[in-house]
């Protein structure tokens, strides 16, 4: 079932790359809760989380021709984009908007009612793509960086100031935990 869903979503991303508006709307509706929940957890601010989520989907449009299903599901791909966008944003001290500018998305006003909407969306069932969040921070970091961001063990070890073997173990343990979590569901 999960595989079938992954195939369908991958096909939708391919259609986005080809200019299919309906495919985008389906992916947006399906994954907005996941991206928003992740953004909210990372930023702790509903308005900033909404801002980041919009940028993530704009960047996903641009990156859609390069999406390769064998490298990860659409959910992990979107969270990888979110992580990169957040890192860039922290560096420049403001939420990135380069992708939205590029696709010509005008600034959208964030109103009072939208605060509640963020809570509502973020509390939706995370589904299988929210599994990553069930891992401990150390395992989540290692799995995210290696599997989602495709960084080498060496690079991650250098950044986290630990040995490559530690990172390998964390990735392996994290993936094992994700597998057993999936089997239980």
């Amino acid at each position, binding site marked *: 079932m999960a595989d079938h869903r992954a195939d369908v979503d991958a096909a939708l991303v391919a259609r986005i790359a080809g200019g299919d508006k309906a495919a985008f709307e389906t992916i*947006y509706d399906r994954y907005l809760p996941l991206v928003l929940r992740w953004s909210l957890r990372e930023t702790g601010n509903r308005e900033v989380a909404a801002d980041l989520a*919009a940028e993530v989907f704009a960047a996903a449009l641009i990156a859609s*021709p*390069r999406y390769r299903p064998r490298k990860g599901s659409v959910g992990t791909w979107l969270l990888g984009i979110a992580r990169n966008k957040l890192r860039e944003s922290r560096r420049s001290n403001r939420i990135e908007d380069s992708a939205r500018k590029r696709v010509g998305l005008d600034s959208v006003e964030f*109103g009072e009612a939208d605060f509640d909407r963020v809570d509502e*969306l973020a509390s939706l069932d995370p589904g299988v793509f929210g599994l990553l969040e069930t891992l401990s921070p150390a395992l989540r970091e290692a799995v995210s960086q290696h599997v989602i961001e495709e960084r080498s063990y060496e690079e991650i070890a250098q950044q986290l100031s630990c040995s490559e073997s530690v990172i390998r173990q964390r990735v392996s343990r994290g993936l094992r935990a994700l597998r057993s979590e999936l089997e239980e569901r």
Partner: protein
Amino acid sequence: MSDYFGDVRVGLGDAVERQQHLRWYRRVKKPRHTYGLAAVLAGLVVAAPAVGAVTNWFGIGAPNPIPKQSPTQNAGRAFPSTSQLLPIRVSDPQGGPPWGMRIVQTTRGATCLQVGRVEDRQVGSLGIDGSWHDDRLFHPFPRAAEGNGFDCGTEDGAGHAFFDSEYMGLSASATAWSTGNRLVYVGVLGPEAKSITYETPSGSTATERTSGTDGAYLFVFPRNNKTCKLYAESPNRIVRSPDCSGVSGGEMVGAPVLAVDYRGGQVCRPGLTAPMRARMNAIANTERSKLGFGTGVLSSAQRILYTAELDRALSRFAASQHLTLASLFVERFGRCPAVGYVAPKEKPVTSAMLATPIHIKIKPQSKWGIPVDISFTARAPVKNSSSWYEASLVGPCEDGSGQLGYGNIRVGQTIRDNQIINPNYGHSSCKGVYRGIISYIQNSGPTGAVGEGATGRAGKDGSVIVSRFSFKIH
């Protein structure tokens, strides 16, 4: 009632419909019928010149491989987390993805430049002009690569590097060391450098702001007779290249920079003084008229002949000033200082701290000469590209110095150098006494560019004598 997420959904959905998320080269309207498509494709293939016009780009290809880098040798290994794409973008004369640059810091205290074409916030090379089998794809440079063949510079105490480089005859593909038809001038002039005034290929002047916190700039020009004459051949340039090719340190700062404006109002105008420039121009004009070339743009063959004659004339002029041709430009060319340079906080070393016996072993003569092994024990470490050991030797047929290794050295490590003395070099006898000095170089000034196997030049007052030695060749 406002609905943020609904508005984003509509806005992005419309962008998908407009194909605005796709690059300009991918926004291809579907043809009405198959014959139309075939005709369009055929037209593009025929129209694409062999030198690589970069219209009709297709997509992302394999990344460039990560070069082998030792964390303790040469410029060191890059810290990918420090990699920073600068906002600077320069159009290529033939279009396509713009040029840009990324800077990255290394394990040996160097800042390296990655220069190339920019696509989707990545720097890379293009599959054109013979690179990547002309696959017409974009190939990103890995963030972990220290410099993709471009220069690195030793950082000061605040983590800034100060150097400029000239790449003449680089390929439009941005594959380093490849030959092609671009002149690329790049540099980091420090945190205080605010803007640069430069000479455009048409001969006018223009001013651009520097980019990032290192005062970076990047210029990309077509390499043709006109630009070669302006930037590479002119006797007013510190780096002169008769064939308008090769890689060189611009020595802060070379062509095409006319002035650097610093924060605080300081302005630097690199180059020759007005009288010297007039003299150089007079010499150049005389040589051209002697050859009957007039003032127009020269052909390649004419340029080679002209620059050879010009070099001879300039050498005569240099000799009249008691200088060599090379030192003429070094001596008379005003350079820009490293404004904002912060001396590294290194523990100062003294000769007493470094003193160590030098062991000399003269071996039996081989067919190449007499091998002389010089060794000593390091008393101070070499931990980054800001310091190194150096040996100098002066003898009947010898007068030179060289760096001893290009990597880190720990205290107590034995450093070895091997010299081969030819006792009968040429027609002279090289027998006699040789005197040498081992020094420890600790920079207290900017070093300029450091490339593969070269760790730069010492800053001011950077040399401390470790020991002196001598030996005799019989």
